[in-house]
């Protein structure tokens, strides 16, 4: 750790970091660290009990978030952050469980878990950093890669359709769906705070630069150029129908809070069902620490 850290101006993110692991592995101009800043501010603003907070990541660049935050943090297998998080939440309903992972991890290899967790309305906060490509492995096409862009596995251009993630998770049943970019640091922080107030499956997509692979391969400049693009081309449309928020390579990025609705979460439904069916025979789950 550098002596520079000894300063009277405290970086609000610092107490949430495993400072002995910083500097991190993310490339210059990568937006993942920026999303962590917004996440940390949201934790402060929403006054969450950090002792009850667990963070689960999958594999990939964003999957490394779990290794940098000073929380109970789990770096799981590729695509499986959501089912691992589901297990944490089921065994200890008092935990606040955040899933922090990338677009490829959550929507390709983990796509099945994503839609089923939304369907069940498990009380998880999912932060999906979408850099539109598989970055850790070198820039291959992801389910989110926009049409016409170039990747290492579509060197002549992507021709398959991409996922519109807000629409996908809304259709599957998420109660809170928002999208921001790494330019919208304060809005993102607010959205994460709002998701903490919701009980149920919340999904926040953050469009984030990948200067090393997505930007470079597509001659879109560096991280700062991506940020300027987000600033210029983002349009805030709260409540926009998610069918209208699909991403294109160079077009407008619709951001905002798209879905905010009430629906009982999985554990509430489960308890109600057991009370109804079993009456007094239902034994509510207590602390599960088997020590």
């Amino acid at each position, binding site marked *: 750790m550098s002596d520079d850290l000894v300063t009277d101006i405290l970086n609000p993110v610092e107490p949430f970091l*495993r400072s002995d*692991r910083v500097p991190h592995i993310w490339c210059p101009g990568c937006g993942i660290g920026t999303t962590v800043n917004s996440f940390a501010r949201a934790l402060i603003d929403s006054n969450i009990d950090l*002792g*009850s907070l*667990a963070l*689960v990541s999958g594999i990939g660049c964003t999957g490394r978030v*779990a*290794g940098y935050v*000073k*929380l*109970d*943090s*789990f*770096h*799981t*297998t590729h*695509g*499986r952050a959501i*089912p*691992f*998080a*589901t*297990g*944490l*939440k*089921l*065994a*200890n309903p*008092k*935990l606040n469980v955040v899933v922090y992972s990338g677009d490829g991890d959550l929507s390709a290899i983990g796509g*099945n*878990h994503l839609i*089923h967790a939304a369907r069940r309305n498990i009380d998880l906060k999912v932060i999906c950093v979408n850099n539109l490509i598989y970055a850790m492995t070198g820039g291959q096409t992801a389910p989110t890669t926009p049409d016409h862009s170039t990747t290492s596995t579509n060197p002549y251009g992507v021709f398959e359709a991409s996922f519109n993630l807000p629409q996908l998770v809304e259709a599957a049943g998420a109660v809170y769906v928002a999208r921001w970019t790494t330019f919208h640091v304060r809005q993102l922080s607010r959205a994460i705070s709002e998701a903490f107030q919701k009980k149920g499956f919340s999904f926040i997509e953050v469009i984030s630069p990948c200067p090393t692979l997505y930007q470079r391969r597509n001659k879109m400049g560096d991280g700062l150029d991506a940020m300027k693009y987000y600033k210029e081309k983002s349009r805030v449309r709260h409540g926009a129908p998610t069918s209208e928020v699909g991403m294109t390579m160079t077009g407008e990025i619709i951001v905002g809070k798209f879905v905010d609705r009430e629906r009982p979460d999985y554990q509430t439904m*489960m308890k109600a069902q*057991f009370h109804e069916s*079993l009456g007094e*025979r*239902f*034994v*509510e*789950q*207590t*602390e*599960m*620490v*088997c*020590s």
Partner: protein
Amino acid sequence: MKTDSEAAVLPKAGHHSADPHTADRPIAVRHTADPRGVLTGIHFMDGDHACCEGALAAGCRCAAGYPITPSTEVVERFASRVPMVGGTFIQMEDELAASITLQGMVWAGAKAFTVTSGPGFSLMMEHIGYAAMTETPCVFVDVQRGGPSTGLPTLPAQADMMQARWGSHGDYEVIALCPNSPQECFDLTIKAFNLAEEYRVPVMFMMDEVVGHMSEKVVIPPADQIEVVPRKHTHKSVEDYLPYATNGDQVPEMAHAGEGYNFHVTGLTHDERGYPNMTLAVQDKLVRRLQSKILNAVDRITMTEEEQIEGADVVVVSYGITSRVAQRAIEAARERGLHVGKLRLITAWPFPEKKFRDLAAKVKAFVVPELNLGQMVREVERAAGGQAKTFAVSHAGGGVHNPEEILKVIVEASRCQTI
């Protein structure tokens, strides 16, 4: 059935008292089962249901599953019983999910298991590796059916034995148990949970379709006669706790999410802090410890049932349902005046290599019937190291051996010359 091994006292699951290897260990407070989960009494139930009752008796209160024949009855019963015991079952969207959801449950403080059969077991391999690497104590039940692929969904096999050992990539060790009756499905499920906790390792519970679906008398003792091993939870302060530091016995202490330890768990190669570290030295230290914490305890972990081994010319090595078929062949061979011993593997992994090496010096041959085309027989042959001959009695699955087939090989083995 007369036995001369510790299998005879198996109903007292988790006991170590007579074991010389535990002599230098501190005498722990004896933990017994939570009576809420124990269905004390004499029952007539199948192996799948008995396995579920064993899990509940062991203190398991969480399960994640995905339906697959012939294993589903285990979680069906769990789903029906657990809301009245205080716990949770969730049916996940696939086996990949089930096999990691249960690990989330464990890190939140629960004892948890999942249940599957061949095709699902294949999907779970990734997370058996994750459990081995992160040292997550948990139980995977595999009610084996005929394969490969979809194979014989409703019919037995024992062809996942090597998969249980080697199925996930990289070097790691697991423990595997093979019950041969509904009673053992109960007793050994408790043992499986206890071993998982003691060594912080995924334990494979290798049933087969016949054992899973046969109904027999199952005696469930009172809770205070069932010993359970609690989580090896740390007592260290937040400041002093290192998630993967070990203290002599090679098994680190665990913390749970929500307790304030702010610990990190990763499937990447990690140091004592749990932090990723890709250096050769850290990899070597970690992977060797994952291996040696089990291999150094082989004698403590191994359970066999042995009969007339002394003076035997031929020893029949079997496990699971095949051990019951082999029993008839063994008795028929003895009636013909042959000196036949029986060695039943109750634990298949870690393989009791030394036991077989010593035995190979005394006998002419091993006969290994199993419902596959040759899996555990290779271990027997390897351990025998050429000191005794090894005869496989293979079977492609879908049924059990005809005892005559086994008898024929025993007779043939008895005639062979001592090496």
